[in-house]
């Protein structure tokens, strides 16, 4: 990273960015993070204003939030806050519609969250969520994202194929930018030249967003490069998992209705479940032998990467892969604590420099991703307006100094879906003191946790209680 990016490139970048936020993907990382923060903020606010104007004409949910909170004009970043969605927004449909497989009504609901045109979607014959995903893909630009929340209800995000494309390019840009050799030289993958296997100890496809990136990777660098052995994450099973948890909590699991078509697949699901450990083990074997000495790209949680390295070390292996290999991980360790010097130890076993292990931060609700810089900070990309909110009352904390609280953002990349979102992450943002890595603008500390009620032994008398259960097991016993 250099302090002064080429000024010609910088000017072009600045002009393009105000017209098209995604244009930053065509620039090098040092150019992208070279804009003076005030100037960047002005561009961001203008783009956000355009997004709001469009949404007030095209997205009913945004209209509702604006009307309920008397938002008419956007004069500052804080004016956007009442318009942000939350996890609850993406699951604000009545659960009974999903249970009754009333997908025409689900489609109408989904259409109110975004500006995508869903009128041509025929969901009348859908019985399962998987059917609905296909119907949406046939009749609209939406390639539906599903995620299961902790409270049992599935969340649905109406992301379009174009938006997915932007997200994949962003992810690729991020990790290509992070792939540098010991002297800062780029080791980025060249389409048509480098055929490097992408290995992921998880599902290859399905409800989770990561499967789509693997498709994109193969489209970009060649088919047959992805090795992700855990099959498909089934959207209906994911949704059922949440409902089983919730029903058990209420002591109503016995009366839960399971879609007969899902029930019919019981044997298949049981078999897949039983095969998981064997498939993972086989991948570990491939990583020990077949991939050894080769260049690989590996994506997993920190825990799994650490497990792999410890296993290799246990076999007496050092320098398992070529130094231009690349490892990137999201998610942390199982117990939430990073072992001291883990990166150093892991890098040695894998045969790469510590720079080749990239830790990322992102979430399904945004099209952005951030990778830790060498000084341990996540730099906020130009297409993201970040916020730190007071965890008790969601009021914005001042955009100066260092602030800790709930993370919220307005993502400028989405086109028909809505980019404003209040997360459940507890973060610390430094607004105005530069990072030694040279990138300008706000940055987040590496330590990110979930917002928890500070007062977790508070007891009230209103609510419901029950016990927890496991979804697959429930289905298998049904």
């Amino acid at each position, binding site marked *: 990273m250099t302090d002064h990016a080429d000024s010609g490139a910088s000017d072009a970048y600045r002009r393009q960015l105000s017209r098209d936020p995604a244009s930053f993907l065509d620039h090098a990382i040092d150019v992208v993070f070279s804009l003076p923060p005030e100037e960047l903020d002005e561009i961001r606010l203008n783009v956000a204003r355009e997004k709001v104007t469009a949404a007030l004409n095209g997205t009913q949910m945004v209209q509702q939030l604006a009307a309920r909170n008397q938002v008419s004009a956007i004069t500052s970043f804080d004016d956007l806050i009442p318009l942000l969605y939350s996890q609850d927004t993406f699951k604000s449909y009545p659960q009974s519609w999903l249970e009754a497989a009333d997908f025409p009504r689900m489609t109408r609901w989904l259409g109110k969250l975004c500006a995508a045109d869903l009128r041509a979607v025929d969901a009348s014959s859908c019985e399962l969520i998987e059917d609905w995903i296909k119907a949406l893909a046939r009749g609209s630009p939406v390639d539906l994202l599903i995620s299961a929340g902790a409270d049992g209800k599935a969340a649905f995000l109406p992301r379009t194929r174009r938006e997915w494309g932007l997200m994949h390019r962003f992810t690729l840009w991020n990790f290509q930018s992070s792939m540098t050799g010991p002297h800062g030289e780029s080791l980025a993958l060249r389409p048509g030249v480098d055929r490097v296997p992408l290995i992921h100890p998880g599902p290859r496809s399905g409800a989770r967003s990561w499967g789509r990136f693997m498709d994109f990777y193969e489209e970009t660098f060649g088919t047959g490069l992805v090795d992700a052995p855990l099959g498909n994450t089934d959207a209906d099973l994911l949704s059922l998992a949440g409902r089983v948890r919730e029903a058990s909590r209420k002591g109503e699991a016995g009366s839960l209705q399971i879609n007969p078509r899902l029930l019919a697949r019981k044997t298949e699901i049981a078999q897949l479940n039983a095969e998981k450990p064997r498939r993972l083990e086989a991948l570990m074997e491939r990583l020990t032998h077949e991939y050894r000495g080769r260049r690989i790209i590996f994506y997993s949680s920190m825990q799994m990467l650490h497990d792999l390295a410890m296993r290799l070390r246990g076999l007496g292996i050092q320098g398992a892969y070529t130094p231009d290999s690349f490892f990137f991980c999201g998610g942390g360790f199982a117990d939430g604590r990073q072992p001291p010097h883990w990166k150093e130890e892991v890098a040695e076993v894998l045969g790469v420099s510590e720079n080749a292990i990239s830790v990322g931060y992102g979430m399904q609700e945004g099209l952005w991703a951030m990778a830790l810089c060498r000084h341990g900070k996540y730099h906020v990309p130009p297409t993201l307006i970040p916020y730190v909110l007071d965890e008790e009352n969601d009021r914005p904390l001042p955009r100066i100094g260092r602030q800790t609280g709930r993370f919220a953002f307005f993502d400028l990349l989405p086109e028909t879906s809505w980019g404003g979102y209040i997360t459940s992450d507890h973060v610390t943002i430094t607004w105005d003191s530069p990072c030694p890595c040279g990138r300008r603008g706000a940055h987040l500390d590496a330590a990110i946790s979930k917002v928890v009620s500070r007062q977790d032994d508070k007891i009230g*008398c*209103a609510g419901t209680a029950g016990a927890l259960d496991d979804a697959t097991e429930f289905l298998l016993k049904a």
Partner: protein
Amino acid sequence: MQYRIPIVARGKVIEDCEVTCEGRYGASFLCPDPNKYLPEILLPTRRALEPLYQISLDDVVDYLIELGTRLRIDTNPHLQWALELASVFNDVPSHLVRGAMAAFPTRFLTREHLEAMIATVGREHLDGWKSYERSTGRISHIHAFGVPTAHVIAGNGPSVAMMTFVRNALIRGYAIVKIPSNELGTAVALARTAIDMAPDHPLTRAFTVAYWRGGDVDFESKLYHPRNVERIVAWGGFASVRHIAKYVRPGIDLVTFDPKISRSILGADTFSSEHTMREAAIRLADDVGNGNQNGCTNCRVSYAISDGSPASLETLRRFGQMVFDEIQRLPPEVSSEALHMDAGFQSKIAALAMLDDDFHVIGGDKRGGVILSLTGDQVDFADELRYRTLNIVPVKDYDAMLRFITRDVQTVGVYPENVRDELRTTLALHGVQRITSLGYMREYGADIDPHDGNEALRKMCTWVVAEDCMTNYAPALWRKPAAAPGGRTRPAP
């Protein structure tokens, strides 16, 4: 301002506050290290219970009535301190906390009320050994005793601490009260008022109060042992009971008062005239709004009998508006607007407002709201409705409603009255624990009437039987029937 929460152990106030604890709204407080004072918190020996049984039940009642005369907020500095703590750490508005505290003497500490509580166990069982002659001739003398008990109390208002004090005194147990971090003051204030009144009285020394972090394994694994406590009375839901449940074993019984929700049923006659609609709306508004809908007795969902026709739904719309308007008219000492609304809750309401073919939303902001489910679907977050928000669900008949009724439903308010007589057994079989007249849901006398399906006071006692087998020479295996002089003889089984 850093608040200091002492431990009050067996009549002594320990103010060695050296541990900082996190409370709500970023406020913190200091308290003594409970581990350091565990010996003071625990009963040193079971003999320490004996003084409790050297006084009579009448003495207990007199003590409590005397205590009541000292629980006046304007003159009692301890209650004033508790009120201040509640304003910092609790989300129940101060004036509501004040109102609840002001009611202590009249609500809990009258002779009439205390006698009614005593009657739930039977004075004869609490004040001595009641004799029962059994058919075999054996005479059983039965006495209900209080035992060393940990009370993990709820903090959604000050009354739980008061109720715990009275319950413990009447059964003459030894209470170790774990105070919640949102209601730090009331239990301490009661213990200190008792010390001011009668420092060496056995009842004063039988009420110990401490804060420790719920789930503190170090402390709880020492405390929750049968040699220290025989009962754990736990308020709170799965999360708070889960870590307590692991200490339950033979020798420790668990009495739980788990979180509940309440609902109401509006019979077809509700909508037969303008007058009945108005009457029901006034009552329902109180059930929804009192105490700002923080309690388990607050109504969150109303099932309204309706044929689903446009005319009927129009009537329900009008009725919903009446309820909303009446909520706005609730006096400030009963209910008030929300200060802050959670973004997630707001977006749930906004989503329903968009789905206007299926839901009709009135208000739905800081003033409260009424959500009418036009197609009969109860909202998914019915159990979490707050900020004075009600969901009215039209149902074609009572059968259509029963699928929503589970053991989580504590109270069902009914209108008109005949609905109770028609439905009470059915509701009970579905798990409902209390059925009452609409508008009276908050008037729950859980200290006299069954509490969440429990005979709480009886359950908190250990019931001891002292048997006399000799007065009547009750038959025994070793006693041949023929050899029983003057006794009742019966053939051996």
